[in-house]
Every structure is written in structure tokens, then in C-alpha cells.
């Protein structure tokens, strides 16, 4: 097949996000339906980057100098995105930490839903949408199912209304390794306990990451919180669409400022040098105790894998969120 034809086919595949219509007359096995929907969510998350990420990468690629190494890397990244979608194969072989965010109505039963998530993860691993990627930290054993202590990571939130919404993030290891947490004040950076201090440590984290997190990257940041919450809230910022606006004016300005400044560092895609070092930066804040001031930075690689679905009352996929 020619590349053009493959691309054409690839774009067709977008609609391959299945929206399952169930016939009302038939008796529905809601457990099986839930597993099917979750496996489909995992498949799409692992093989297709969300539209907002695709748009951001495509726009950034245009800014690179023609025939430069950065241009070359961005070209390969774009080809890889097309090919993964077309072949319905993982974008990257590191399918990452599997993190679910489940938003549900009051009275929803979390424990049985957890079991269905685990079944879906096992099945998606068998089908090759997820690599056998979960290792026991004490014994080094890999059960081959992606299940184990703390895996997959599942977070539940109660919300108003009657719908269940499931978001999924696959967070790669390379970019997790360059994620960071700072404690302000940081005297080596001259970063104090204020917005300017926050700006400094975030830029420093991007400098330290160089190309090691498979940049161009995207950041989720949390200002404040204790060490654990701060890291978690930072990661949750990666659920925001890359082209959205922060409702907090000050943080919105800071987000833009950090992206512009980081792209002056010249680290570029893969650390080859170039104009695109950072695709986006999303910042939130949480209260802290007077004694501490943490800033957490979650770095996501270009293979930015997140998706989400709204399930209908039969647990079929009603709508895709990204």
C-alpha cells in the first residue's frame, strides 16, 4: 500500500472508535458490555493520539526548519501516529502505567466495576494493545497480565447526573523518569515561594529532562499540596485538552509563558536541537501547610495517550471525550 493510501485508511480509522448500539429487545449482559467498552477504550488510547494532541504536534512540526534533524524527528513522529492508527497497534511499545479515572453517579458500586476494569486490562494485554508491562517491585516478577499491587491505578469520583464516564491515561516510563518535584525555596535556582519561583523550577525541570522524556513533551503542574497530592494533581492536569484555557487568569498566563520560554531552550524533539521542546503546560494549585511549598511536574512524552468515554445505561460507549 502506498503511504498516501495508508494515510487515507488511517483517517478512516478515526471513526473506528466504536459506538455500540444495543437493541432494546435483547437481554443485555451488562458485565460483558462493560468489559467490551473498556477494552475498546484501551485499544483506542494505546493506538490513537487524541485530536487535540494531534493538532498541537502537527502545528509544532510546521515551525521546524526544513531538513533539520528536528524536522526529521517530527516527520517520523507523525508517520508513527498514522501507522499506529492504521495498524491498530500501540503507538509506543512502552504502553506505560495504566491509570483509570472513573466518574460515577451516587449509589454506583465501585468494587465490581474495579473487577471489570481488571478483566478488561487482562484481555487488552492478551490482544496486544498493552505490553506485559507490570513488574513486582520486590521480586521482579512479571505476571504478564498488567495486574498486581497498585496496578492498574484506578481513581473514583462521584459526580452529579446518571452517567458513568471513564478516562484513561497510559503514562510511559521514560517521561515519568524525568518528572520532578521541587520544594520551594530552591536556593540553587533562586526560586522563592511565589509564582516567579514556580516558573523557575518548571523551566529547570524541562532543561534537566533534555530529550530523555521523548520530547516534545507536555507538562501537568501542581503548585502546592503535600508531596503525594501534589504529584497526583500534576498528573491529572494532563487530562486537560492541550488547547483549552485555564480559568485562573494568572495560571493561564504562566502556562503560556512557560511554553514560550521552554521553546527558547533549543532542546528540540528528542533533544536533537530545534524549536519544539514543549507542546503545552497545564497548571493547577492546591492549598499547602505554611511549612511546605511543593511544585510537582508531570512530564508526558509526545506519545501522549489519553482518552475517555461516556457509557450509556447499558454500559455501551455513548460518546468519546477527546
Amino acid at each position, binding site marked *: 500500500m502506498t503511504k498516501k493510501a495508508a494515510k487515507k485508511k488511517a483517517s478512516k480509522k478515526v471513526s473506528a472508535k466504536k459506538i455500540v448500539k444495543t437493541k432494546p429487545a435483547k437481554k443485555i449482559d451488562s458485565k460483558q458490555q462493560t468489559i467490551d467498552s473498556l477494552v475498546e477504550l484501551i485499544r483506542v488510547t494505546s493506538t490513537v493520539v487524541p485530536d487535540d494532541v494531534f493538532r498541537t504536534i502537527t502545528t509544532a512540526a510546521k515551525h521546524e526548519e526544513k531538513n533539520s534533524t528536528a524536522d*526529521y524527528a517530527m516527520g517520523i513522529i507523525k508517520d*508513527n501516529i498514522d*501507522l499506529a492508527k492504521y495498524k491498530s497497534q*500501540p503507538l509506543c*511499545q512502552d504502553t506505560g502505567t495504566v491509570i483509570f479515572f472513573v466518574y460515577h453517579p451516587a449509589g454506583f458500586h465501585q468494587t465490581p466495576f474495579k473487577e471489570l476494569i481488571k478483566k478488561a486490562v487482562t484481555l487488552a494485554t492478551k490482544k496486544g494493545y498493552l505490553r506485559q508491562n507490570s513488574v513486582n517491585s520486590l521480586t521482579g516478577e512479571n505476571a504478564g497480565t498488567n495486574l498486581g499491587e497498585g496496578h492498574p491505578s484506578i481513581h473514583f469520583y462521584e459526580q452529579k447526573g446518571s452517567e458513568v464516564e471513564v478516562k484513561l491515561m497510559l503514562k510511559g516510563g521514560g517521561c515519568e523518569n524525568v518528572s520532578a518535584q521541587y520544594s520551594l525555596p530552591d536556593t540553587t535556582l533562586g526560586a522563592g515561594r511565589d509564582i516567579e519561583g514556580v516558573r523557575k523550577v518548571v523551566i*529547570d525541570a524541562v532543561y534537566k529532562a533534555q*530529550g530523555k522524556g521523548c520530547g516534545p513533551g507536555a507538562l501537568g503542574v501542581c503548585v502546592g499540596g503535600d508531596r503525594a497530592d501534589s504529584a497526583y494533581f500534576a498528573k491529572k492536569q494532563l487530562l486537560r485538552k492541550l488547547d483549552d484555557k485555564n480559568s485562573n487568569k494568572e495560571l493561564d498566563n504562566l502556562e503560556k509563558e512557560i511554553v514560550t520560554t521552554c521553546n527558547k531552550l533549543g532542546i528540540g524533539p528528542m533533544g*536533537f536541537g530545534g524549536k519544539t521542546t514543549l507542546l503545552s503546560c497545564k497548571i493547577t494549585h492546591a492549598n499547602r501547610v505554611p511549612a511546605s511549598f511543593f511544585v510537582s511536574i508531570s512530564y508526558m512524552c509526545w*506519545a501522549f495517550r489519553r482518552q475517555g468515554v461516556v457509557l450509556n445505561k447499558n454500559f455501551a460507549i455513548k460518546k468519546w471525550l477527546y
Partner: protein
Amino acid sequence: MKRLNYPFSPEAVRELRVGDMVLITGKLFTGRDAVHKYIHDGNKPPVDLKNQIIYHCGPVTLKDKSGKWTVTAAGPTTSIREEPYQWEVIRDYGIVGVIGKGGMGQKTLDACKEYGCVYLHAVGGAAQVLAEKIKSVDGLYLEEFGLPEAIWELSVEDFPVVVTMDAHGNSLHKDVEAHSKEVLKTVL
């Protein structure tokens, strides 16, 4: 765009410079943590690595009914983990190229210069594009390490990489870091 075709040699890789975009056609051997540790511990590699290229990669592989292997995902893994061992493998077994991601340190850079070897950076995460360039699986060694850790002998065509450490003591990683450090000073 430059080309590096099999058979490889120290002379051919000495022609390459940092920043060169290169398409490799020929043979690659995968090798990551277990393999490097094994060689470091004094074991002879099961294949002759003289004038060969090592690829830091744990591929995802499938065997069909007839017993034929195909590679379904083959992106590079982080190279710096092999820094304690790589220079020895270059010195003792005469490899002329290392493919990986993230770059390597001074010991490897020195060995590249002394013995004629280059570090070739593949695009991290490009598992599908890179797997497409693999035309056949020609051998499997040290299978007991597990499939991702074994040595896979692969034939590739137009496998895209960038030279980020050359045989003349230059490192793009060092240069980019130094440049970004200068900029960092002005923006902090």
C-alpha cells in the same frame, strides 16, 4: 540524508558526523540490559559482533504457525543504562554502531573515538515506523533471558537514525545541553 549499508566498518562510520541523518540498510543485533551484563561478566557473545551494530531495543515479537517470527513494535530503549558496559563491548568485540535513545556518557564517547564507533539515535516511541523497517528476523540468541532481552538478528531497510555521538569525540547531547544551559541562565 546519508546512508550506511552493510557490511559496516570502522572506516565507514568515521565518515559520519554529529547531526547526520542516516538510513541504515543491513543487519542489526538487539541487545539490552541482560546481554550487556552477560558480556561484561566475561561470557562470549553467541554471535560475532565484529563490525556489527547493536540496537538497544526490547522488541515486541510474534511467532506465526510456521514458526516464523515478526516484530510488531521496535522502538529504542534508554541507552544510558548500558553506560558501564558499552565501552568494553566496543573495545573487545569490535562493534561499530550503537542505536538507542537518550545518548550515552563519556566512557562510550571515548571508546567511539578510540575504536571507531558511532551512537545513532532512533526516535523514541516510534515503535511502528521502526518495526516497519525490519524486513526479516534472521536469528534469535540467548532466548533464556526472555524475548525482549534476547539477541535478535534483524535485517532492516532504510532504518532512520540521527548521529548524536560520532567517532571524533563530538556529542550532540553535550552541545544541546550546553546551549540550553546558556539560555536557561538568561531566562531564570
